[in-house]
């Protein structure tokens, strides 16, 4: 493979064709006489190209690095999810249940672990919410709204998958409230992204940290100590997946707090490095 071919592959990391061509030219110039681009150059181009492709903020803006970090977190979370799905599916087929009627449950269990397990759901929600917060704070409102909707769709999928597992009683009022809360929360989050984007330009970053800390405290208190009684009724119907959906509140608060804190302490980058 020639130097140009290798450099062209690297430059493809950039979504913008003209920028990719520009980077390619510079890579070729700076690596003239070599068979391959320098490792440091390759890493640098991949890093910035992927950041641009992931839709993060332009490196160097106030929240650019936070946006990059959140985007990478989303990708990592999805990779973890994919690996988990493969492992569980492989295990289900390696040890098939004796009773054919158990097959759906086995498969659903795999899906459940992938989409509905508390840790996995929290990981996805945290990553998506981080990206949404960072995107909103960086002024990328459309992307933030898309992420919020994706997170809500994930929550809804979790709810539906969990209900398909085992024996579940008929739809309860507690579950109804959960669905309504998720819907209202989604609409509010979508509406708030614009406000977050505007506020990010005006409100000092340490205010964000304070507000996020307060939100975190309230959300964790509600979710951890009063979820079943306060939100879902006393029947004990809400089980693992409902708790996972409930912790969306908590997982929204945690990344918001982290995002705000990081934004508060990270010095505004002058250049990407």
């Amino acid at each position, binding site marked *: 493979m020639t130097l140009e071919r290798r450099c062209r592959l690297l430059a493809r990391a950039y979504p913008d064709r003209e920028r990719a061509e520009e980077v390619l*030219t510079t890579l070729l110039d700076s690596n003239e006489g070599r068979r391959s681009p320098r490792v440091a150059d390759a890493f640098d181009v991949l890093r910035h190209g992927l950041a641009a492709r992931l839709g993060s903020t332009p490196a160097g803006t106030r929240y650019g690095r936070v946006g990059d970090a959140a985007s990478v977190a989303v990708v990592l979370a999805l990779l973890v999810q994919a690996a988990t799905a493969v492992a569980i599916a492989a295990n289900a087929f390696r040890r098939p249940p004796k009773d054919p009627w158990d097959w759906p449950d086995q498969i659903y269990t795999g899906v459940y672990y992938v989409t509905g397990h508390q840790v996995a759901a929290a990981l996805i929600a945290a990553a998506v919410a981080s990206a949404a917060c960072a995107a909103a704070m960086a002024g990328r409102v459309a992307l933030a709204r898309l992420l919020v909707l994706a997170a809500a769709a994930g929550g809804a999928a979790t709810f539906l998958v969990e209900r398909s597992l085992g024996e579940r009683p008929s739809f309860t009022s507690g579950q109804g409230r959960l669905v309504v809360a998720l819907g209202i929360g989604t609409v509010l989050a979508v509406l708030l992204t614009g406000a977050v984007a505007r506020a990010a330009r005006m409100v000092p970053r340490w205010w964000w940290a304070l507000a996020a800390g307060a939100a975190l405290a309230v959300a964790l208190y509600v979710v951890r100590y009063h979820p079943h009684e306060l939100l879902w009724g006393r029947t004990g119907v809400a089980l693992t997946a409902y708790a996972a959906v409930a912790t969306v509140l908590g997982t929204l608060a945690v990344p918001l707090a982290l995002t705000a804190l990081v934004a508060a302490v990270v010095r505004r980058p002058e250049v990407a490095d």
Partner: protein
Amino acid sequence: MQEPTFLILTALADEARHGYGVMQEVTALSAGRVTLRPGTLYAALDRLVAEGLVAVEREEVVASRLRRYYRLTGAGATALSEESERLAANARVARRRLRKAGVTPA
């Protein structure tokens, strides 16, 4: 203003340069201390363009390779001038203190 930004603006002060030209000039200006990588350079240029300190002057396609030339804007020249003054003032103070302490600056 961090040193790489200062050096990029300085590299563009006298003439418009393309990406590789800026990289070479920054290395020369810093006597090899600062080496910009391509991804980092274009991220910095994007930011400087967004801030109005740098602008794209022209594009050339030579041997089917795109070269985009960047130049310093008026605002960029002002920012560079102010930063230069600030650094020079700091250097004067440091030299004065060193002389007072009996140390001769190199």
